């Protein structure tokens, strides 16, 4: 997690001017977005460890990593969408549908190979995400409204489909459940999977044309269109990839938790958006990184565990998350004001 300076086209700044402003100073501002989260995370872990050494016992560390895994994957997907100045509120419902679908697959076809289940889960998630993408790009209604609608539609579907049926860990093969128990070099297998997702998406976002286009779209959709970026296609892809990742999270949920049913994943969407925002992904698009979002996810899930380990009343947890969101927004605001001032100064010098 050391992506300190994503390449240039930078927050709220057109690329050419950014270069003139000088790379090193820009690097500083960019780092500002992820550094506070990483710092807060380290402080949190160290303080909790000092108060209760069991927090970082092998079992404790494993729990911390496992707790974050699903949220990391969801936050990465959400970050892709938010960077394009959209949002997907239906991820909790997508996760629920896919998790229940995973349970049904194992119950209906007892011998089904695990990779096939993963593929079906990913495809199912991507389909649901693609529906969001289509609605957002074709109907040209704000994503907030569209995905609020699909949040309820998908949840309604899972209620109609599942009813009171629940599938338990017992209904699934042991090897599948063991994915979230077994470790490789001390890391739980599914956490490594989540890390791979972060790395792949981070590279695509930072280093490919398509990834950079998403930032351009989020910074200024109209300019992006004039510039010749296929805005509709890129936004659609962002939603489809987010759905795919939510599908992956759904399959992993079924591996990790005991029961999957109609209410699985209920209310998760706000936690996911919060994780992305706390991780420095600007809610109005155009800046932030998936590494930051992943760090935000780790931070938020770790707070819950830390408060429990320090015997703090869990009712405080929500207030703390709120403070973090506000802090993230203030940092974002300060960063963009500083950027604007520097740009003004450097442009004035050039004139």
């Amino acid at each position: 997690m050391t992506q300190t300076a994503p390449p240039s086209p930078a927050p709220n700044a057109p690329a050419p001017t950014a270069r003139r402003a000088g790379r090193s100073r820009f690097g500083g501002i960019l780092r500002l977005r992820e550094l506070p989260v990483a710092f807060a995370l380290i402080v949190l872990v160290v303080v909790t460890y000092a108060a209760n050494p069991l927090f970082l016992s092998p079992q404790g560390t494993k729990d911390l990593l496992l707790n974050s895994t699903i949220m990391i994957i969801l936050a990465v997907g959400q970050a892709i969408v938010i960077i394009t100045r959209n949002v997907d509120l239906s991820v909790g419902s997508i996760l629920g549908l896919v998790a229940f679908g995973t349970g049904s697959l194992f119950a209906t076809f007892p011998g089904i190979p695990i990779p096939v289940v993963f593929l079906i889960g990913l495809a199912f998630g991507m389909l649901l995400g693609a529906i969001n993408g289509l609605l957002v790009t074709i109907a040209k209604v704000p994503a907030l409204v569209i995905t609020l609608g699909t949040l309820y539609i998908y949840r309604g579907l899972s209620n109609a489909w599942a009813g009171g049926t629940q599938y338990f860990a017992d209904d699934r093969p042991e090897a599948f459940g063991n994915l979230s128990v077994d470790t490789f070099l001390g890391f739980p297998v599914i956490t490594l999977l989540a890390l791979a997702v972060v790395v792949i998406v981070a590279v695509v976002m930072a280093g490919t044309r398509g990834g950079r286009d998403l930032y351009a779209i989020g910074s200024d959709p109209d300019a992006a269109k004039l510039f010749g970026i296929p805005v509709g296609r890129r936004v659609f892809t962002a939603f489809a990839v987010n759905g795919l990742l939510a599908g992956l999270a759904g399959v992993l949920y079924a591996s990790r938790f005991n029961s999957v049913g109609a209410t699985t994943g209920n209310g998760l969407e706000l936690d996911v958006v919060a994780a992305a925002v706390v991780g420095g992904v600007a809610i109005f698009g155009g800046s932030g990184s998936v590494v930051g979002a992943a760090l935000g996810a780790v931070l938020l899930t770790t707070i819950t565990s830390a408060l429990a380990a320090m015997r703090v009343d869990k009712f405080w947890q929500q207030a703390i998350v709120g403070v973090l969101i506000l802090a993230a927004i203030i940092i974002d605001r300060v960063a963009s004001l500083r950027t604007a001032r520097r740009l003004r100064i450097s442009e004035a010098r050039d004139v």
Partner: protein
Amino acid sequence: MELFRNRAGGRRARRIATFAAVTATVALIATGCAAGDSGSDGGSGADGSQTITFIPKQLNNPYTDVVLGGGEEGADAAGFASSEVVGPLDASASSQVSFINAETQAGTNVIVIAANDPDAVCSALEEARSGGAKIVAFDSDTNPDCRDVFISQVVAKDVALIQTKLIAEQIGGSGQIAILSATANATNQNEWIKYMEEDLAANYPDIELVAKVYGDDDDTKSFQEAQGLMQAYPDLKGIISPTTVGIAATARYLSTSEYKGKVALTGLGLPNEMRPFVKDGTVTEFALWDPAQLGYVAAFAGKALADGDITGAEGDTFEAGDLGEREVGADGIVIVGPPTVFDADNIDDYDF
């Protein structure tokens, strides 16, 4: 996100809003009148046309489904013309009120409710009663002033005592234990916990209750609360989870962690959900009543109330179908039966 894109549409939006408000008002008046009519019809009660509605804490909850299955069977057997199940998808305090209001307007004769919060539903239930409906609380009581009878699984104290007895046996009579409950304001869990605390203080001086945590009947939250307990109390020897979601989530966590077999777990669970954990040794014994009987008796109590056979006063008796006669006790409480203890030997005899 384009939150405020349609800035120019202000006037049109306002017109639509006005229209919507007018429509809603008209609709409310219309349904209000209709409800008044059918309510008074229903109250006088032509036999064979009585209706009963079950409002559980939350729909699509496996435990609730078993209770409601028994309820609908009971409603059929007792002779209700129709029985319905409505309810919220989340078990929050205020979520049941709108469903109660809808039943009041529909003129339902008997409302059977498991309250998420004893007081939040009260004013809505009062309104239903003034429209002629009979209120049967089951599973989780409302404030006694707002219902006619309460059908209790078992004597609350028995439920509490069996759990303290089980945990005491499993940890060898001494050490630290914790309770992982449902929501912090769940009526039945809190009552059991109160009795458990009394019982522990009186009869198990060597057992120390170190924490009460709440998993909100949510798999993920209960899971994390269980983890937190293990970290915060390294000497913890046992957990009591008096809720089916909590005990299953905790069992899943323990069975996948190094604490399996070292930390005892008991409480109230569904045999189908707990079977793997009993077989793999995470859990040795847990308890529950037969939830279907709860719904069954509630339906018969509703029928007896609607027919005017009982009023919910102490000493009233009514026939509960196959289960025989039941008596209304103090505070309008009807007891269904004793709790059952499940272990590796008998768990396969139960399917719910």
